[in-house]
């Protein structure tokens, strides 16, 4: 293991904001890329004003939602609508390998920072945009808040109880999983290609198209003539398969029994209650047919158990099982996450010591690390302008006074 980070030497001019974009550049920053977050002082990143805040008190440098997505990055404030601000942004881009934004289509072009302009000064730039619908097509300009992408992309409608309206994941899943990470994959692949061929790349990640892939098998099934609907916690093969109530209030254990061996193990752990010998539970196919009844009798059994003890006993016996962990469990009681040192505490200049999500993978030889907490708004304006862009003190002072930078 060495201290060298694998993406050292890669610089990203990061124009992304809010949800999906910053989670694209975060893993790159955590692995050594110099990610320079271009922000506006007058139109601050909306996520800087989104809860939770340190001690519940709002402020642009107090949001945990923002902080968690922006580790290891630098922040510069530039007024992109000012001609000199635009020039500074182009200077930054000229010294960068990657440009990333998640604005609505045409925004970067209107700011004079579109791909056609940029590739004239950096022909080998890797330029990624993340429009919601795409840069073309009849719905190009359609927007939306909240769960709009999960709804339009098919995930929301398929997720939930069959007998109720859709419920989804309880999160803006596309912002946290497919869209930022598909985008990170695309940028990394393009970096690899550029090293070999010298060619830059323009990448369009339409958030709708990216999100549809998370339910890709459902679209294939529909195109084969199957009717695909919400299935709750059902599995097409396994039974019992579900989330079963346990002894304490709102405590649950997820259990999946995929074959006879696991069924016998479950039976053993429960102390072989009489119902496990019922003829309608005799083999996997029968159990799947009788799964609603099976859920009922199993729930009566699990209700007497502590969720963690039940999951431990089942897992030790070879049955897939886990308590439903809430954030309190994850942070304070999960022996596995503790052993893996998943959560990371970073000392933020305004928020103090705060918890950040760890990187969910470890590279044995060139591991990443959360190098620094999220930057304060504009914390690095001066050093980026002076040290990286070579602007002299006097000019910087004037630009700062005029509100162009700083």
């Amino acid at each position: 293991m060495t201290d060298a980070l694998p993406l050292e030497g890669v610089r990203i001019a990061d124009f992304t904001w809010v949800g999906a974009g910053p989670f694209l550049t975060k893993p790159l920053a955590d692995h050594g890329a110099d990610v320079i977050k271009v922000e506006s002082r007058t139109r601050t990143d909306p996520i800087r004003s989104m809860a939770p805040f340190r001690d519940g008190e709002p402020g642009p440098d107090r949001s945990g939602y923002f902080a968690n997505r922006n580790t290891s990055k630098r922040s510069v404030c530039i007024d992109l609508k000012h001609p000199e601000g635009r020039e500074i942004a182009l200077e930054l881009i000229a010294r960068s390998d990657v440009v990333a934004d998640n604005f609505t289509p045409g925004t970067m072009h209107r700011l004079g920072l579109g791909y056609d302009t940029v590739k004239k000064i950096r022909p080998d730039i890797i330029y990624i945009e993340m429009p919601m619908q795409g840069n073309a097509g009849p719905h190009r300009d359609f927007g939306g808040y909240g769960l709009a992408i999960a709804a339009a992309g098919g995930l929301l409608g398929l997720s939930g109880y069959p007998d109720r309206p859709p419920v989804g994941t309880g999160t803006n899943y596309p912002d946290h999983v497919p869209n930022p990470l598909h985008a990170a994959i695309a940028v990394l692949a393009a970096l690899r290609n550029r090293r070999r061929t010298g060619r830059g790349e323009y990448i369009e990640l339409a958030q709708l198209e990216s999100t549809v892939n998370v339910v890709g098998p459902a679209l294939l099934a529909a195109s084969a003539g199957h009717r695909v609907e919400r299935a709750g916690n059902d599995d097409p093969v396994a039974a019992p398969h579900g989330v079963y109530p346990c002894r304490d209030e709102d405590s649950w254990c997820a259990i999946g029994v995929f074959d006879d061996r696991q069924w016998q193990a479950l039976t053993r752990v429960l102390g072989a209650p009489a119902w496990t010998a019922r003829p309608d539970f005799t083999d996997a196919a029968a159990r799947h047919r009788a799964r609603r009844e099976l859920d009922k009798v199993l729930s009566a059994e699990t209700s007497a158990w502590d969720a963690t003890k039940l999951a431990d006993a089942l897992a030790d016996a070879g049955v897939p099982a886990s308590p439903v962990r809430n954030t309190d469990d994850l942070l304070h009681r999960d022996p596995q996450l503790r052993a893996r040192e998943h959560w990371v505490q970073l000392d933020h200049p305004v928020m103090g010591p705060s918890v950040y999500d760890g990187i969910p993978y470890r590279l044995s030889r060139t591991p990443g690390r959360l190098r620094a907490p999220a930057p304060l708004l504009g914390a690095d304006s001066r050093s980026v302008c002076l040290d990286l862009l070579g602007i002299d003190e006097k000019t910087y002072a004037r630009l700062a006074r005029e509100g162009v930078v700083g």
Partner: protein
Amino acid sequence: MNVPEIPTNPGPLDGVRVIDLTTWLGAYTGRLLADLGAEVIRVEPDGGVPERRRPPFTADGMSLSFVFTEVGKTSVSESEVDLEELLGTGQILLTSKGPAALRAKGLHPDDVTRRHPSLVHVSISPYGLTGPHADRPASDLTLLAAGGLLSLAGDPDREPVRPWGSQSAVVGGVHAAAATLIALLALETSGCGQTVDVSVQEAVAHSLENAVQYLDLEGLVRKRAGAGPMEAGTGLFRCADGWVYLVGGLGGRPLAWSAIVNWLEEGGIGEAAKLREDRWRQAEWRRSAEARADFRAMFERFALNRTKEDLYERGQRCGISIAPVSTPDDLLNSPQLNAQSYFRRITVGTVELMLPGPPYRFSHANVGPGAGLPERATSSVLRHERITA
């Protein structure tokens, strides 16, 4: 109409060979790498991996979830190849079992990277390679529980409920693919391979939005709360052919409110005039059960005879944040996706299927199933000559 064309340069991972020994948990990673132009060779036991037998199936008996993860890969059976020799020719090995199961086959990363120092072994596993739970059996549902996502999903009066499909494999798969490419860049710089230890539990725990920070900063444990915030004008509304998702307010403040009111009035809901009263701009009223029920009754009366697509097109053109709750069939017929030539037509056995396109478009490189070569678009994994379903 502007129909994007697929460029002809080889994919960005041209020249990379990936040996794919994964289960359902890791299969999406190889698919992503294949789309980007890597040669992904799946090595299967004689008779095929169990994932081939997971319903639903095509008329030919091919598993559709398997088709989705295997498009663009090639397949060989264990007995036909010398795995060690094959590993010597590749840059990346993908596995997705726990450490004990890998050790039993001589495939623990410690052993593999010793035998093949210039190989990147990407080990995607339920709980990671170390720790007290490393060898626990796991399924999609139990990993979503262990990583905390289930605690946020569902109605408060019902059991937690999982999202459709095997999302733990998607979450683990996308993180693993990003990690693979970071390790590939390191490999191509230094010539040194390494182990990439991906924990799916941790990947799920990385997907909880702001929930962990809520606890840390404000002492609040977020719980499942249905389909979103409780505010008049925001949420799911029934229409003629299903549901639409409308955001008429956020954080207690109205959003495009007059556009919504005008739209309702023009649609013959005279009663909507009262939505202009001052209290509809106040958070407390907007969040009250009475206001929510009132708005819902009006909007659903309006939407009763209108389709999702109609509400989407008209609402969006008035600047309203509205989206259809799309079904898979809606998506196959989506005017936007079809105008963008999103779907790829593939033939599996004798069956023609519509495959969602890759998550991204590259202007200068060919990206997508089989990297655009029609003869590779389906892949030998999905043909029947060697292994039948």
